[in-house]
């Protein structure tokens, strides 16, 4: 098929999930000409399997927390322009513990987080019972994070893409990127796809869990790998869980390096009345086979937190593949190896929350403005150094 006209774009964004959509919206709103390609239909990757977490509570102080705080602020700004249908809600998160030792660790972590801009309030069992009447009484305390938010990620991404389109962006779903053309000086001059070349000066790798593939095709490899997660969806219930509620193990598992299965309870209600139950992490490549053991653990943990859920029924289960890098930080920013390549992937279970901040950094990478937060920790070159 011939190349689509002679139009040259400033930027081609590869990936139309939440990160790609956020980047496309910011770039287009800034007046750049943008083309978004995705090998599947819009929002068909991990965003379609996401829970919709916008969290600060699980971030360690450091670059990821800086990005999270930036993003949460930007999500609040977006609330004005996104329709109510995206269910953006500052519902807040609560981490609870059933052991004194666990609680002590939570409280210590919270103090550390508070020093870096996170709002965190220690809550005693009486306060917990008021915040979450159905929570098990077998808790010794917890920490409340009012900054944690929730959104319906597919709708959010779809509306961001729509905003990009309204500002002139072209959307090309079901178009698979196959490579990058570089000019005599080595700079990007086109993205190759299975339906022709698209001339451009910049290419943004927002391909999520497939960001490693796209990066390799573009000449700037980065080690993004899949980490499988399952989610249980219950039948609709009257309001049962009022915040995002996590068992204390949740935080630790995100940072773990073990190859095997890790599960930790995460429970929250949605506007339609269903309760979403997570979270599991496994390194099994792209194997999508249902693990009944994992489903069982998620169910057992949810019941432990909310005993009333025992008789509640699961109507649907699904799984997704989170993109992760060895050091659990995303890859963001220009790739020195390929002039014109900008990465924006590897957000491991935090893609939705971190998308707006990532989009801002990507815009700054393209326009040459100084980045809002330092890009070095997210550099695509860091893996060679780490390996060394």
């Amino acid at each position, binding site marked *: 098929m011939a190349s689509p006209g002679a139009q040259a774009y400033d930027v081609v964004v590869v990936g139309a999930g939440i990160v790609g959509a956020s980047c496309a919206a910011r770039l287009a709103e800034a007046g750049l000409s943008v083309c978004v390609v995705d090998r599947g*239909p*819009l*929002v*068909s990757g991990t965003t*379609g399997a996401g829970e919709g977490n916008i969290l600060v509570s699980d971030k360690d102080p450091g670059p990821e927390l800086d990005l999270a705080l930036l993003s949460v602020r930007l999500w609040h700004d977006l609330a004005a322009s996104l329709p109510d249908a995206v269910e953006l809600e500052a519902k807040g998160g609560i981490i609870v513990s059933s052991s004194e030792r666990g609680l002590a660790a939570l409280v210590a972590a919270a103090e550390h987080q508070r020093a870096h801009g996170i709002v965190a309030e220690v809550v005693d069992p009486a306060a917990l019972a008021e915040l979450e009447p159905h929570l098990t009484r077998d808790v010794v305390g917890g920490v409340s994070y009012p900054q944690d938010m929730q959104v319906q990620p*597919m*709708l959010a991404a*779809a*509306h961001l*893409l*729509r905003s990009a389109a309204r500002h002139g962006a072209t*959307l090309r*779903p079901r178009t698979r990127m196959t490579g990058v053309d570089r000019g005599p000086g080595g700079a990007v001059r086109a993205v190759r796809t299975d339906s022709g070349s698209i001339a451009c000066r910049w290419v943004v790798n927002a391909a999520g869990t497939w960001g490693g593939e796209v990066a390799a095709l573009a000449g700037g490899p980065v080690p993004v790998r899949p980490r499988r997660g399952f989610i*249980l969806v*219950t*039948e*609709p219930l009257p309001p049962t869980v009022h915040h995002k509620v996590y068992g204390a193990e949740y935080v630790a598992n995100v940072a773990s390096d073990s190859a095997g299965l890790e599960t930790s309870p995460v429970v929250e209600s949605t506007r*339609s009345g269903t309760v979403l*139950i997570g979270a599991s992490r496994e390194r099994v490549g792209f194997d999508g086979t*249902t693990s*009944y*053991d994992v*489903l*069982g*653990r*998620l*169910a*057992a943990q*949810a*019941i432990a937190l909310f005993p009333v*859920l*025992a*008789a*509640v*029924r*699961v*109507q*649907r*289960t699904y799984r997704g593949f989170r993109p992760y890098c060895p050091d659990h930080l995303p890859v963001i920013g220009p790739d020195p190896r390929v002039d014109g390549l900008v990465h924006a992937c590897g957000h491991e279970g935090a893609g939705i929350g971190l998308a707006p901040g990532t989009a801002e950094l990507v815009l700054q990478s393209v326009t040459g403005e100084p980045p809002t937060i330092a890009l070095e920790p997210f550099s695509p070159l860091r893996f060679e150094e780490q390996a060394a």
Partner: protein
Amino acid sequence: MAEVPREEYDVVVVGAGPSGMAVAVEAAAGGLRVALLDQGARVGGAYWRHNPEHLDDLTPVALHHDWSTFRRLLARLQTVDVRTEHTVWALERLELGFRVRALRGEVERAPVVLDATSVVVATGTYDHVLPFPGWTLPGVMGAGGGQALLKGTLVAPGSRVALAGSGPLLLVVADGMLRSGVEVVAVAESGHPTTYGLHPSSWTGLGARTREASSYARTLAEHRVPYLAGHSVRAAHGTDRVERVSFATRRGRIREYDVDALLVSHGFTPQVELLLQLEPVTRVDADGSVVVTVDAQQRTSVPGLLATGEVTGVGGASLAILEGYVAGRALTDRGVDRAVLKRIDVHRRFARAMHSVHAPREDWVRRLPDDELVCRCEEVTAGAVRAACRDLGVDDVRGAKLMTRAGMGLCQGRMCGRAVAELVADTSGRPVDAADSVRAGLRLPATPVPLSVLAREALTDDDT
């Protein structure tokens, strides 16, 4: 929590309709240890839905078809472990064989786990009903569902009933209603069955079928029930239940009837979700339904997983029984007479002809107003789906589901899936994709499962 004890079988058959009964009987006759599961309280499926009173009769009952075949198979089930009130929610492939997870009792919801070397899925179909204005009014129901109520419980779905849609089921159900003393005010068939004439070869060898069809036509004539060819439902009217129905021809001629029940069928949707959990090769059949591909022994592409009856292609009970027989014999390494294979061929040819006659009128999508529901469970309107296509670029069923919640309710898209696919295709301009339909049909669990049951699947550290 304690693990659910597992029971072992050579074969587990899921679905105790005509096909499943035939498989189980034949496999047990070959010496295998067979479990036959069904979600109903009695075997027979929808086709042989019956009331205990019917078992007292030694002569064929007016409501039933092939009743003597049913009695014969029922008697031979003595050597089969029949488990009624079992709803299977998952099929898992093990290293050797399969694990079948079920809930026993619609109220009890007790976990049951069976391990088997082979599994045969014969889960039949449910009515395919396309949305129309007023279709969610109480009293509007699937024709097969209305018939099941009458056959199973001797309670009629209404006292003034109309039938509408397309397909031979309408005549069958009308006949049954009339014989039971229910008033049938009209039967509206949107197709033109005279086009059977276009496929003369399809009738060869189906003399019984021809006689059957004329007998239904005779019953309707005897009761002076108008048979309205070329008419489809324009709207069901009523406040809290259906009170009136209006039919219309393509040219706009309208007829109205007062009713208290409207039974509708636009064909059948095979219940393939358990099969899809194991990712066998599937195809889209001539009637637009997703079915599983099988070889001459009814084996799917997954070793040890067989499928018989409507889930391999809608073709009626006689074909389903023959396929069940073939599968039952294949499981015990026995072949079948060539005469049987020829019969199967004849039935499949007829089924193909039926599909082409009774294709629903394409303009149902265009005639569905924006404010009418397409998804019953989540109460999503046609307008919402159209808007998602226009405004958000949705062009497949999955996208429609994620953006509008159509298909996210308790029935998980069973009722609306095919309709949403056609609606999306019509609005977006992108034709319905087989892969999309398969993905939309994957449901795990296949029925809602209590968290406490699921929790028992967690392996303790001793197990790992």
